[in-house]
């Protein structure tokens, strides 16, 4: 068997005890129909949750539940402290200079929409202005900008993608110009797996005075992130992809910038005062958190970043890198399999999309599933990227901190079985 011990990644991986990690995830012990053990290779879609996260949520509901901010009683104080501690932990996890820079949303999509809406409402993006995104964006980082540019009469422009699946920066200087008001870019592609050189784009955007939004949905779960040195103006990400709960996302933004922007949703908690004539609004982050916030979800996300910190994000990243390298190697042994995206584990996250000659991705996923191997098939909310590569859909296997080489082997075996199934009858 190739791989183990062969690549440069093996050394880093040695210290990381994936079997111990797996014990924290009871779902990984499940067997599925036909007695196949679950081989979960769909973590770019959503990650599983360790016991620690689920227990933190449970304890919160059963022992410390109350509404936050507005309650002055003891339970209210406990709940508020627990909720705001989640914010503090997230801020620490991404190196935010101030905890008030962490705005809780319902998911990454809301975070990206929030930025697009308020930049429109603030008049930052107007008719004739330009917004630049890339062909490899997730729909959640496309549609908000399409809607914004339609509403305002601004123009949406696109970075291309090279044949290898890398961001094409050849026309960086002609694409990002004085007319550009916002550049919004994914850090790690959920389809191609590419890790983009965001620093270069940020530098150019700031040269021309444009704001930079980074979609960190796939980055924050798998690589160490320090927003204090990144240089971006906003970073969006989502709890459920980083061993945290559903129902919570994060918008990080530079404090002074957040403080200069109008509110997004109106309601309880985001106001300073309300009169029948007009209302004034609270300072960030509360200005952007209308209504009862995701309280138990903040507690869960806090437990999630604790979990990741205990493992060490360097170790998580090294494991991701090692397992991706192993998978790229093993997958490319399969005849008729084409990886769509970078074929080497260099500047590459743990999502591998591929096509299989003569078998449609749905049929691949279905057959893999019949062997317990869970992958995703379709456009992965990245239709323009699929169009770029002339495919309507792909099959995607994606890895995370609990993925083993044995699972990659199971994937490869199941793919061969699939080829046989559709070819051999």
């Amino acid at each position, binding site marked *: 068997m190739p791989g183990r011990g062969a690549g440069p990644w093996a050394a880093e991986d040695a210290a990381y005890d994936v079997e111990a990690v797996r014990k924290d995830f009871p779902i990984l012990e499940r067997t*599925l*129909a036909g007695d196949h053990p679950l081989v979960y290779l769909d973590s770019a879609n959503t990650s599983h949750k360790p016991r620690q996260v689920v227990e933190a949520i449970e304890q919160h509901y059963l022992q410390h539940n109350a509404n936050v901010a507005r309650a002055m009683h003891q339970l209210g104080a406990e709940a508020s402290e627990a909720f705001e501690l989640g914010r503090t932990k997230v801020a620490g996890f991404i190196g935010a200079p101030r905890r008030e820079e962490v705005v809780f949303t319902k998911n990454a999509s809301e975070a990206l929409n929030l930025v697009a809406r308020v930049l429109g409402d603030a008049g930052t993006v107007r008719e004739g202005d330009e917004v630049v995104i890339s062909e490899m964006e997730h729909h959640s980082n496309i549609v908000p900008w399409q809607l914004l540019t339609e509403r305002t009469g601004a123009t949406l422009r696109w970075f291309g993608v090279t044949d290898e699946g890398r961001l094409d920066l050849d026309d960086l200087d002609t694409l990002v110009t004085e007319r550009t008001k916002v550049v919004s870019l994914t850090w790690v592609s959920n389809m191609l797996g590419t890790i983009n050189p965001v620093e270069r784009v940020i530098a150019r955007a700031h040269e021309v005075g444009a704001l930079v939004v980074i979609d960190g949905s796939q980055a924050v779960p798998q690589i160490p992130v320090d927003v204090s040195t990144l240089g971006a103006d906003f970073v969006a990400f989502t709890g459920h992809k980083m061993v945290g709960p559903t129902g919570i996302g994060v918008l990080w933004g530079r404090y002074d910038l957040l403080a200069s922007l109008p509110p997004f949703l109106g309601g309880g908690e985001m106001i300073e005062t309300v009169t029948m004539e007009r209302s004034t609004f609270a300072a960030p982050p509360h200005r952007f958190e209308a209504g009862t916030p995701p309280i138990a979800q903040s507690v869960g996300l806090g437990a999630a970043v604790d979990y990741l910190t205990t493992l060490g994000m360097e170790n998580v990243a090294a494991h991701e890198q090692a397992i991706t390298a192993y998978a790229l190697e093993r997958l490319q042994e399969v005849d008729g399999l084409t990886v769509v995206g970078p074929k080497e584990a260099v500047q590459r996250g743990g999502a591998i999309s591929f096509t299989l000659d003569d078998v*449609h991705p*749905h049929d691949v996923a*279905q057959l893999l599933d*019949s062997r317990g191997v869970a992958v995703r098939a379709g456009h992965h909310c990245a239709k323009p990227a699929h169009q770029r590569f002339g495919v*309507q*859909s792909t099959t995607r296997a994606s890895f995370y901190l609990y993925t083993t080489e044995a699972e990659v082997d199971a994937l490869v075996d199941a793919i061969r079985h699939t080829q046989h199934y559709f070819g051999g*009858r």
Partner: protein
Amino acid sequence: MADASQVDALYQEIILDHYKQKHGSGLRDPFESEVHHVNPTCGDEVTLRVHLDGGTVSDVSYDAVGCSISQASASVLNDLVVGKPVDDAFATLDAFQALMQGKGEVEPDEDVLEDGIAFAGVAQFPARVKCALLSWMAFKDATSQALTTQEDA
């Protein structure tokens, strides 16, 4: 819920045959209506044309991109409705839809559905039901439009 035997029930020989050799594939003239349907979950697409001759479906032509289930289903659709009165075609559609959405509890009638009974296994796979229904829903939509046009004329 989806072990090897169920997958075999899903991918019946008949389905794979239709997939490999689609009946009536391609877009043809004449037609009264053309529709484009998408399965937003997975991106499967079909462009489908209907040509009516009085009360009869005289052609259903299509260009479909998608999985074996969605392609085979378009092929079977073509077999089952072309040359039939619109009313009969709609009855067949209803029967097919009932089978798909029956969660495995609906007994297919071979006299009505012919090769379509091979899709019985799909009902066990909620995520695939939409694949099987894609071209049928497009047919329903296109035919309704064509009928409206006829009436207006």
